[in-house]
């Protein structure tokens, strides 16, 4: 896998070969077994109790977490010297995906293994890990992460929580209130962020039993009702100095790096939820009869099923491509080195734009999925007796936590432009070329012998278009571009869709030869459906961006560029959708896992 050499954001200016991407078809037997164990455990032990869990019977959650511990599902990211497995990201994403069908339980799992445990793994001292890590990876203790405050949500560093060293120098005294803390109701270890002397943003490992820590009442929520969400009050909470995590004043590093991981894992989890939701929708469409016909025989319903299959195929392709990128990057680091986790963080941070893309794109695919699944169920989608309603409610949070989708959207072009300004990505030089392309008409014929020639040509054009718009924006607003949020949002949408489409095409190309005829036809159909949708979304975003930034002749020129660079011949689109829908209704599931 040579894509390790691809830098974060670099996909926008290079072409990648399909051999270089990781895809779900590349899973090893062991990885597949991880997935199977997870799936069987969730199906056998958790799903039958989802209703009890949603009634906030947290004992079941805590017990389930212990069982996860026994199965090894909590130790995937932990280093071997502390009893962990230190597995690749593709494996942990597959597991996250398989757990996701459980809704609330999945949130508890994700918070525990992600934001709950990773700060300790990445930044803990040997003594801290000795003391806490085994408890966390066995599920004996659940973990929580306390960053958000009533006055500091998206502005996570703007918190008021404070820490002051005690007079005898043995403790920090923490004060403040943390808001919306997942697992608050039963967690035993809290990673709490507070400012030492009101300036130095720092993380602390705080035990539930430490004096001065109080758990507030459970929030009453729209969805994921069976996950615990509480305020956590710190009133002169005494934290031993040994429990300071990482360095004084470097808490923001911990907060943000852990969020990067949270974001790509969330991408995987929501993809799993989308598959499960779609499956119930398809089954229902096959069962329900109106006008003496099955719902699944109506074109309006078929189109939903086809579109969702294509969207989820894109999600899945994107998530595992990113897993491969991260794994390849991390594999280049020598595990023996002293500053392993420092380099490891850098490795993950490299792909921070892609992590944000994963979060936004995949959570929005899930949002469309659950919405359409409720629609397929009609009135029965609106009542709690059927599963569509729970999927619908549980979905909503994914666009809010781990950084709202707005914050993540802002980050995507923001981080990519910053890389360019730092000279890490030759965006400017490429933008010049893109402007040249805009001026010179081209009449390149498609080389039909190339697999997915039309989609690859489209991708090259879309990248040119991104560069033209980003270039125009930067030219006009210079380093103030980040404040032009409407433009940043448009740029984000283009960058997101390009990454998703490219991942889709590369996976399809790589998988094609291993598939039988039927599956090949289906993959081709999914690529067509998704390429059409991506090109349309990008066209809209690009036109919008053009109107925001330019006027007069330049505007006219850019708009004609938008037309030219988003052109995609989607002939056979309807047949492709019919094919996908009919196959999905025959198999009664998402077609590509």
């Amino acid at each position, binding site marked *: 896998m040579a894509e390790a050499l691809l830098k974060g954001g670099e996909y926008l200016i290079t072409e990648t070969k399909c051999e270089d991407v990781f895809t779900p078809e590349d899973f090893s*037997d*062991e990885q*597949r*077994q*991880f997935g*199977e*164990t997870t799936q*069987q*455990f969730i199906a*056998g032990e958790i799903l039958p109790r989802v209703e009890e869990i949603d009634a906030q019977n947290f004992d079941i959650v805590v017990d389930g977490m212990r069982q996860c511990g*026994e*199965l*090894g*599902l909590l*130790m*995937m990211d932990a280093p071997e010297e502390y009893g962990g*497995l230190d*597995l690749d990201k593709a494996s942990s994403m597959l597991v996250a995906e398989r757990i996701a069908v459980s809704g609330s339980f999945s949130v508890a799992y994700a918070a525990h293994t992600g934001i709950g445990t990773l700060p300790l793994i990445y930044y803990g001292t040997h003594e801290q890990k000795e003391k806490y890590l085994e408890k966390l990876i066995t599920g004996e203790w659940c973990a929580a992460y306390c960053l958000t405050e009533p006055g500091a949500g998206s502005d996570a560093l703007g918190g008021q929580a404070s820490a002051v060293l005690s007079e005898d120098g043995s403790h920090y005294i923490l004060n403040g209130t943390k808001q919306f803390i997942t697992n608050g109701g039963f967690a035993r270890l809290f990673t709490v962020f507070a400012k030492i002397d009101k300036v130095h943003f720092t993380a602390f490992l705080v035990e539930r039993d430490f004096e001065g820590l109080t758990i507030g009442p459970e929030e009453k929520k729209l969805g994921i009702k069976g996950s615990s969400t509480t305020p956590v009050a710190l009133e002169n909470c005494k934290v031993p100095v040994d429990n300071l995590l990482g360095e004084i004043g470097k808490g923001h590093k911990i907060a943000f790096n852990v969020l990067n991981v949270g974001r790509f894992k969330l991408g995987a989890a929501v993809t799993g939820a989308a598959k499960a939701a779609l499956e119930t929708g398809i089954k229902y469409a096959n069962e329900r009869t109106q006008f003496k016909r099955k719902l699944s025989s109506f074109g309006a319903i078929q189109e939903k099923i086809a579109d969702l299959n294509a969207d989820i195929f894109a999600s899945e392709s994107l998530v595992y491509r990113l897993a491969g990128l991260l794994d390849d990057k991390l594999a280049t680091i020598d595990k023996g080195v002293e500053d392993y986790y420092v380099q490891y963080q850098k490795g993950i941070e490299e792909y921070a734009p892609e992590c944000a893309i994963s979060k936004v794109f995949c959570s929005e695919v899930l949002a469309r999925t659950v919405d359409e699944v409720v629609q397929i169920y009609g009135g029965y989608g609106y009542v709690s007796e059927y599963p569509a309603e729970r999927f619908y409610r549980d979905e909503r949070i994914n666009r809010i936590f781990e950084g709202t989708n707005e914050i993540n959207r802002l980050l995507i072009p923001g981080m990519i432009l910053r890389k360019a300004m730092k000279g890490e990505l030759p965006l400017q030089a490429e933008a010049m070329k893109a402007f040249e392309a805009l001026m010179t008409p081209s009449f390149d014929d498609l080389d039909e012998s190339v697999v997915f020639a039309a989609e690859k040509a489209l991708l090259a054009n879309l990248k040119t278009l991104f560069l033209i718009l980003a270039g125009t924006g930067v030219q006009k607003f210079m380093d103030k571009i980040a404040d032009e949020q409407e433009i940043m949002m448009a740029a984000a949408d283009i960058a997101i869709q390009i990454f998703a489409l490219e991942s889709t095409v590369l996976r399809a190309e790589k998988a094609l030869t291993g598939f*039988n005829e*039927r*599956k090949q036809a289906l993959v081709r159909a999914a690529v067509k459906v998704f390429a059409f949708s991506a090109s349309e979304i990008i066209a809209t975003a690009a036109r919008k961006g053009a109107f925001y930034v330019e006027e007069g002749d330049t505007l006219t020129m850019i708009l004609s560029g938008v037309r030219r660079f988003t052109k995609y011949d989607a002939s056979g689109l309807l047949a492709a959708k019919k094919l996908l829908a009919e196959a999905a209704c*025959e*198999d*009664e599931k998402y077609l590509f896992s």
Partner: protein
Amino acid sequence: MKILVCIKQVPDMESKFKVDAAGTWYDTSDLAWRMNEYDEYAVEQAVRLKEQLGQGDITVLSIGSDKVKETMKKALAMGCDRGLHVSDDQAAGKEPLQIASVIAAFAQDKGFDVIFTGMQSQDRGSGQVGVLTAEILGMPSVTTIVDFSCDGGVVSAKRELEGGVKARVKVNTPALFTCQLGLNKPRYPTLPNIMKAKKKELLSVPVAELLRADARQQTTKLYFPEKKGGGIVLEGDVGELADRLVQILQEKTTVLSR
């Protein structure tokens, strides 16, 4: 104690099956594969037996294409010690006696004390492989067991018979047991054990080296049963309806007979 467990890889039973081009088996492309359900009970029982005795060596055997190794790895992750893969791309076309002859040829000189198999496979469902294997090896077989305990070379097994009747059977080892639903709850292989299984022995031998029986049967046609006619909707006065229902039940079924 030396234990052998024989497992088969079968399609996920939730799959949509199609008859293959030759019309004699199902189309195997595009299916998800897993361990035959009854074989999971067999593996679990073997591992429990070893755990109970505190010693032992469990060999898992499977016949099929390279693909079945994935399922064998699951058995290794559940606790089997070594794997013997009999490589055969045409395993699905072999009749039960041929499969049994392969297992027996392998087991013959290995001195297994206990052999576990599933009571049947979920796809072919002949239910013969276990008993035929025992017969060839000249050891007793106990079928459809739902309980198993072993004490000093004597096994006490509970068998499930028709109509909810159970039988308790005692047998000396070596013996073969075919496992039925209810015997145990198979464990989920843990992630650490899945990783450890990677290092366990998993050998392959070509089927030709072990096959001792010629085919005597031939599947001539595989097909879906024709759909039976629909139900009857009774309408009218409740009292009359009840009488007609009783009449139908008496005529067409045995549910009211004593």
